[in-house]
């Protein structure tokens, strides 16, 4: 029973970390730009395909490609903000529709270039670590540890750098922040790029774990959305807490009952929490 509990916690936490990576980027973009980025899952997907091409076909070093893919997504995100989203600042519905259009375009492009098949990339690490009677796949453990490192760097950046402080100020009140010298025209593309970079990290890290195909971003997008709603739109600590709640609840109920019930219960938890606290666990 104890071994089962350990397995459930480990499974839940490794899932949570990836959900948090996705959700943080999503909530950052919303918090600063008030854009519901429905293309977030496709940024995850594009990063995974970059791994497929650079690692799978060209044989580049996997860890180098993870960093490159994340940076590429960051730059791509900044360009998207500047070219496509900036005209819709302040108009949330238009921004959402633009994000949907980008999502469909990226999916279709991937479909045309790579076809509908599910592709696989050789894992950089394989094998298992035995913790007593519990077996933990090394690749998942590696993803979890790298995700933790990324989250730690992100936290330090947001907490202790000028740009991080400026971004937090913009989340609280853009007008007051601009009076204090914060330039939204710099913060917006930076925030979008940073959010996209986090999605890029998630996609690149998960590429060898699962299969890669044009529609692979839909599920992570859905999870990110749930986590962000659960934690509070625009709340970074909320995204972390929401990710942990979702990951653990899914793991518990999927292991003890089945995956369909786990999905239902995770939605039910979200509904209950929103009924009690409509702004989410840590939302304002």
């Amino acid at each position, binding site marked *: 029973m104890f071994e089962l509990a350990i397995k459930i916690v480990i*499974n839940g936490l490794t899932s949570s970390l990836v959900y948090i990576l996705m959700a943080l980027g999503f909530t950052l973009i919303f918090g600063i730009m008030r854009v519901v980025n429905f293309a977030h899952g496709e940024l995850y997907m594009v990063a995974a395909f970059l791994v497929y091409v650079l690692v799978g076909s060209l044989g580049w070093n996997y860890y180098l490609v993870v960093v490159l893919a994340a940076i590429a997504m960051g730059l791509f995100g900044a360009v998207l903000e500047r070219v496509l989203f900036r005209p819709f600042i302040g108009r949330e519905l238009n921004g959402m529709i633009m994000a949907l259009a980008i999502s469909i375009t990226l999916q279709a492009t991937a479909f045309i270039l790579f076809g*509908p098949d599910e*592709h*696989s990339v050789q894992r950089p690490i394989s094998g298992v670590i035995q913790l007593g009677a519990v077996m933990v*796949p090394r690749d998942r453990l590696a993803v979890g540890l790298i995700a933790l490192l990324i989250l730690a760097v992100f936290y330090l950046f947001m907490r202790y750098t000028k740009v991080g402080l400026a971004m937090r100020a913009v989340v609280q009140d853009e007008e007051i922040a601009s009076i204090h010298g914060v330039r939204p025209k710099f913060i917006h593309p930076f925030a979008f790029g940073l959010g996209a970079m986090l999605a890029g990290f998630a996609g690149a890290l998960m590429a060898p774990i699962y299969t890669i*195909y044009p529609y692979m971003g839909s*599920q992570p997008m859905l999870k990110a959305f749930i986590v962000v709603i659960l934690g509070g739109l625009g709340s970074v600590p909320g995204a972390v807490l929401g990710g942990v709640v979702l990951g653990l609840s*899914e793991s518990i109920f999927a292991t003890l009952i089945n995956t*369909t019930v786990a999905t239902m219960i995770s939605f039910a938890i979200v509904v209950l929490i929103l009924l009690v606290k409509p702004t989410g666990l840590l939302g304002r």
Partner: protein
Amino acid sequence: MMKIMMQRTLLVLASAIGFVWAASTAAQVDTLKIGVVSALSGPGSEWGLAQDGGMKIAAMEANAKGGLKVGNKTYKIEVISYDDQYKAALSVSAATRLIEQDKVKFVVGPLGSAAVLAVKPLWEKNKIFAIIGAYSEKVLDADTKYSYRGYPTQTEFAGRIVEWLKKNKPALKTVAQIEPNDETGWSSNRLLKGQYDGAGYKIVSSELFERSLKDFQPVLTRVLATKPDIIELGTTPTGTAGLMVRQARELGFKGQFVKIGGPGVPQLVAAAGKEFAEGLITYAAADMTTKQYKDLELQYAKVLKPPMNEFVVYFYDAARMLLDAIQAAGTVDDTDKVRAAFEKMSPYNGIQGTIRLGGMKDYGADHQMLTPVFIGVIKNGEQVIMGRMD
């Protein structure tokens, strides 16, 4: 001057007559539209593209010979394909479009059981001749007139594979089943349970998963707690099955994987890894080492992007049989005549052997195409045929 003008006028007139004559000659090659509605993207698309590819290859070959001669007309075949992403709702929209806008009389698809159950009434009501997929036993019944299932299902071959397993791996006694949570999976779960129970195996676990799921750690944790000798993957899409195989091996499963359901060794091996897929026993639609199969792969590459799934063999043969039936019936409009001609085509010379129409005992109508099937095992990342069932 007058003479020059007359000459010019005659030249223009002759050109115009020649143009009209050429156009009318070209118009004598009519177009026969054949529809495809199937899972052309997402999990399951390996089989959906097989439906699409099989029809497209047969059409391409007919067109290369100058078109399909039906009566005293020749038809260029145009294949119109729609993607239903394995979703019944999208399948219904696509089917409606094929009937009302594209005005087709012949279709291939859908693939998924839920989609076929939703769409088949449309095919039957509108007298659309259809080569359908679906593993569910519910899709064929005594009232089925215009739909023919293009590939054999577990009803046709599972018993033989389970018998082979019993004879060749007698130490294995217990089975855990994992299937997708929809009509295809429920039907497969039921059929395979019946076969395993009948052969004396004990079913220790039966799991259903959502098709979008990729993380099977929780499911497999529960399954492995029942200590099965066999994990039966059934109709799980091949990429997903590969993930299950890998994740189960990483969780410590050392037993036998079996897949008596949709085949696709290359994708499964790519997702699982060669070492983990080693020894997996699978139902195989084709012997991929034959010249006919390799030729078909070359043809497939001309119509769709490789790799080709072995299901193409079924739908290529079914498509050829359909085109031959249209020719024999002498009509592209009267699907009653075409289906009568189609039924007379049995037995038919398929590229792997003889194809028959059967199924009266199991379904109440001879609308099931019965083809040779194979038992394969994965060795060093490749499918090796261990047995053949005609």
